[in-house]
């Protein structure tokens, strides 16, 4: 193995300073992702900065919102009573993620910043524009069943695999960071970049910028929310497609709705047009079908993943049906 230096930061400022002082540094929290990337040679940091003692770990309820520390473990957040009742989409997304063992170790910040599962990205013997800029994207004409139908480019069609990020996108959460240039508040939807022609730039974070917490509005809509994940095996597997919906109904009429799709794009994919179709409408089969059709408008399927279009529409209909209390 390579020589790796390891330091344990004791304050956020120190963590940021250490990580931004050199080019090849990485934060580590639970380590469930970073160690795998290192073992596979995908990421080879010279300095690993352990942030387990510096960032927030708590779940703090404030009026109208909750602040979840970046170091809170996935398992802790999933079983938090407030999260379960007031943000069910978050706890169901977390419980549909990874395994019990991984969730006990893995942090919220690490989850949002996990890398794509694209096997071309994770195999250093193969080209990948996101890993080695300009080397090519074998997924375009290769094994692309899991790849993006939205937001990809001719240089990269990766999918972001976080379930949590999809749920948080449906709740319009904000990511709080502290970086070399100070503190920032980033709408979660802007955290991950679309690949465009610079697929190696995966997020908007600056080098050495630390995620401190996530802030989630605890609205009425958030309390009526749900996550559904479709996958090839019953557990311990990433999504083929997932759908997060938060819904506010008055009678049968949709007062407001948020829809985010997972497994389909390089970042959680907000289906705004589908939301628009539903807002103010009665939640009928026809409205749901119209939303499902609009949700996949503009999708760019590849050789093996065209099924995702149909699957998105169907899954969205399924979730709306459950949230609407049967159609």
């Amino acid at each position, binding site marked *: 193995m390579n020589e790796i230096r390891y330091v344990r930061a004791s304050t956020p400022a120190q963590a940021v300073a250490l990580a931004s002082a050199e080019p090849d540094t990485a934060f580590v929290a639970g380590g469930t992702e970073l160690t795998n990337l290192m073992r596979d040679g995908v990421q080879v940091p010279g300095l690993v900065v352990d942030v387990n003692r510096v960032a927030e770990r708590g779940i703090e309820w404030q009026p109208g919102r909750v602040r979840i520390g970046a170091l809170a473990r996935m398992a802790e957040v999933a079983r938090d009573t407030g999260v379960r009742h007031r943000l069910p989409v978050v706890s169901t997304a977390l419980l549909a993620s990874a395994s019990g063992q991984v969730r006990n170790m893995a942090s919220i910040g690490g989850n949002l910043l996990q890398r794509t599962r694209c096997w071309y990205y994770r195999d250093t013997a193969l080209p990948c524009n996101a890993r080695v800029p300009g080397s090519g994207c074998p997924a375009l004409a290769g094994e692309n069943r899991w790849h993006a139908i939205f937001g990809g480019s001719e240089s990269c069609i990766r999918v972001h695999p976080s379930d949590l990020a999809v749920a948080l996108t449906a709740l319009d959460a904000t990511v709080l960071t502290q970086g070399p240039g100070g503190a920032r508040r980033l709408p979660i939807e802007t955290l991950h970049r679309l690949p465009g022609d610079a697929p190696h730039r995966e997020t908007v974070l600056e080098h050495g910028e630390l995620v401190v917490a996530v802030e989630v509005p605890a609205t009425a809509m958030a309390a009526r929310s749900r996550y559904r994940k479709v996958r090839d095996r019953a557990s311990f597997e990433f999504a083929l497609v997932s759908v997060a919906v938060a819904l506010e109904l008055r009678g049968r009429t949709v007062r407001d709705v948020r829809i985010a799709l997972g497994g389909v794009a390089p970042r959680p994919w907000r289906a705004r047009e589908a939301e628009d179709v539903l807002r103010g409408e009665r939640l009928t089969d026809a409205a749901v079908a119209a939303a499902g059709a609009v949700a996949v408008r503009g999708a760019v399927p590849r050789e093996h993943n065209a099924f995702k279009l149909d699957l998105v529409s*169907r899954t969205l209909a399924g979730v709306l049906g459950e949230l609407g209390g049967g159609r």
Partner: protein
Amino acid sequence: MSRYVGKPLHRVDGWAKVTGQARYAADQPIPDLAYGVLVTSTIARGRIRRIDSAAALATPGVLGVYTHENLPRFAEQSPSWVPYAQTLVPMQGTEIRHGGQQVAIVVAESFEQATRAAGLVRVDYDAEQPTIGLVENLSRAYTPPDGTPGALQLRRGDPAAGLAGAAVRVEVEYRTSINHHNPIEPSATLAVWKGDDLTLYESTQSITFTQDAVARMLGLPQERVRVVTPYLGGGFGCKGFVWPHTYLTAAVARLVGRPVKLVLTRAQQYTSCGHRPASVQRLRVGAARDGRLTAITHAVTSHTSRSDIIQFNPIAATQSVYAVPHLEIASQVVEVDLGTTIATRPPSGPSNEALEMALDELSWALEMDPVALRLRNYTDVDPSAPDRPQSRFLRECYTLGAERFGWPRRRPAPGSMRRGELLVGWGMAGAQHNWHPGVAQATVRISTDGRARVTCGTQDIGTGTYTIMVQVAADGLGVRPEDVRAVLGDTRFPPAPSSSGSATATTVGMAVRAAARATREKVVGLAVADPRSPLYGAAPDEVATVDGRLFLRADPGRGESYRQVLGRHGASVEASGGADLSANAGPSYGAAFAEVQVSGVTGEVRVTRLVCAVDAGRVLNPATARSQALGGAVWAIGAALTEHTLVDRRYGRIVTANLAGYLVPVEADVPDIDVIFVDKPAPEANELGARGLGEVTATGAGAAIANAVYHATGQRVREFPITPDKVLAGWR
């Protein structure tokens, strides 16, 4: 006398395993150990232009970097298939024939140093476009020559006429995918030289093959090579023969003059020890209105490596299970640039699944219950071997399984059993697996303290061999199992075959039985000849032995213990015995009944109930047997629903080469599985009455699941694994 055989004795090695005391090949505490790490080709076809080891050699701790340029020539350059799993000997030249082919081994003081240095070995290739993909290359399919392993061309009667005369015909094509074995213990070799003597701690299903193959490759007499495999963390076929990493490690250890340990990485496990090839299978089945089969044609095409032409999706059930007058079996292969294909638990699984799906389709075409269809075509005689004596209790499998499952309550119409969004389906299928027993020897020694030790050069691949040896020896001697210790996994012990073909319990069991009986005869002989024994003067066959005591059958009060006899004798008594069951190969049978729930929204399929009825002759140990049957059923769930290896066409590289990409079933995919054993002895198989059972449940449960998916949805998915996208395709 069977007091312990047939009882659910706990695994005798269970305690050592759960407490971590069981030392597997890679766990051996060898002093002065060095670590080997493989460098494998990143291209699938072409040549090595240049290997630059300088950077690797310059890193700390590196003891050597071995490539085709500095590795001595092996004594065998074109070894025979079996005991060698592949005939290509890597690192002897520049040609690359598959992705992941070994091109270098780095040896260093630590595993970490070796891994790092391996990453620094620079290999330049002249790559050629590989041929990848069975379906994409079907036009290149050809019939391999007679004698090609796994290939069968067979014709019975007049299939064309049989089909023409059928009232109902089904003509279908099924596809199955590449599967990998994924034992939890990766393949490992630990090579220790003392002068010209080599000891290999090896994770192998066959120490005998390993000894033979490594000795020949290194040009050593066999007796200079000792192979030790005390425990195995699963093999499933990928450790059944000898792969290059084993002899490469032995050769390299000799060069560095240190013991060397090499453990395949999980990714290397996908390219270093074989895989099950994909298959395309075409079936035509004809039947009369009453369901009587008139003809079956079954053609299977599999891919094979260019180096070793093998058809590793053999057809076993089609010619042997049903009474069908006209039959044609055909096998073809397509050469691709992948590594050698190999037996994968169970090799004949995909072909039987296809047959059983086709029969299900026929049952729908006939509007006939699928169990009734199978019973209509039932035969007690194997049509492919009518003269072979055979006990066959397949009928019992159907009836016991159907009853336990509640099959008669099934509502026949597809999609008629709904629970909310979930479409419920019930399906069934027959199972059949040929077991391949062999020749084994064993030794039993009983000591002056009355305790026995049974040795056999077999290996316990996780199936319960230790435990079966104890049970059989206990019965053969007439002692309690607590007083028997089984020792195995060492070529110093009497030889036994590869633990594969579902045959170890019976082959080894019969050898142990012979050895135990011979030992017992000796001790009885001592007792009846000894004036100090209460048995003095008795005829040996009047003496019974039970739980450590020898006594007169007619007068049980008259007797003494083994310990007393041997104590007076003052020395232990030992005898060997052997068994040759190689002529007794034949089928075991089963029936599987599955309930699935298919989401009407997403197309996800989950198995909610599975009943497997098994006829494998007499059950030697219901606990270990059940475990085998469960394991087989889980394999079938995986093959049917989740497992497939994907290979990138352009690069010839397996992209799913890890347990996150290759989806074996997890707990949540596996329902309660109900296993029923018919448990009737198969006298023609051997005196224990047992046939093979390690694989049979994996040959039918997949089709039962697929047939249940049809019943649930009314859509037939004819390609494994049945993933949501394929279910949805039928709904669009």
